[in-house]
């Protein structure tokens, strides 16, 4: 029944207002893939973080650009690709600060990428600055 690969795509304007639509979309994908409630929420959070980063950092909070979320369900996994045409960045230069030091510095952020890496099984960036930046994230389906 699930041998066939199924692909889905959502395009929304780059406003944080649309993060809820992105979560609903990704949540439905997770349900289709048979993920438990807890796993569905993890998928939603990871994609929410990725898209919030695109809106804030790649597009500098310009709400008139486009965020694309592509989802593929196959027999092994759900793959989500978040695509933007904004600034881009070099993910290898981003350090991981510990929570206690972020708190001491009164930071209100710096946890998004760690959350994505923890919640998903595979994560990688393909960056072509100003042209197309893609964050591919995979979450495996459990075999039971």
């Amino acid at each position, binding site marked *: 029944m699930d041998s066939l690969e199924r692909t889905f795509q959502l395009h929304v304007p780059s*406003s*944080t*207002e649309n*993060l*809820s639509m992105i*979560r*609903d979309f990704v949540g439905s994908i997770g349900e289709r893939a048979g993920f438990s*409630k*807890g796993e569905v*929420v*993890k998928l*939603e*959070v990871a994609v*929410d*973080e990725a898209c*919030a980063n695109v*809106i*804030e950092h790649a597009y500098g909070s310009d709400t008139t650009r486009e965020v694309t979320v592509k989802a593929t369900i196959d027999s092994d996994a759900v793959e989500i690709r978040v695509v933007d045409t904004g600034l881009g960045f070099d993910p290898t230069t981003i350090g991981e600060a*510990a*929570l*206690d030091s*972020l*708190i*001491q510095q*009164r*930071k*209100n*952020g710096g*946890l*998004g990428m*760690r*959350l994505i890496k*923890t*919640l998903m099984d595979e994560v990688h960036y393909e960056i072509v600055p100003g042209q197309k930046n893609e964050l591919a994230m995979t979450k495996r389906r459990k075999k039971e």
Partner: protein
Amino acid sequence: MTNSFTVECARQGDISVLAVNGFLDAHTAPRFEKSIQEEVDAGRMRLIVDCAGLTYISSAGLGVFMSFVEDLRDKGGDIKICGLADEVYQVFDILGFPALFDIVPDRQAAIDKFCEPDGKEI
């Protein structure tokens, strides 16, 4: 609606209880930040955030807790967190919040925490 978010604030003695409801993400976090800022501006340093109605949180929501807690503690206050649903708690947990924040089951337990001498400090 899956993007609704509300905060209601009730003051009990020197403790302010902020009851949050709905979805706390990059879109709604500024509203949460504003509510906490209002308490801080009013000189109120003992805050309980009651998350019983909270359906969802992302790092933008967690960032609000992070950015205020140190100043509150410096002034003898704190943020206690209560009422987390399992799905919401897992996000706090993954990022290590339970080691640095008092996270308790309900509002009464949070009030009791403020009466203990040994609040968590970094």
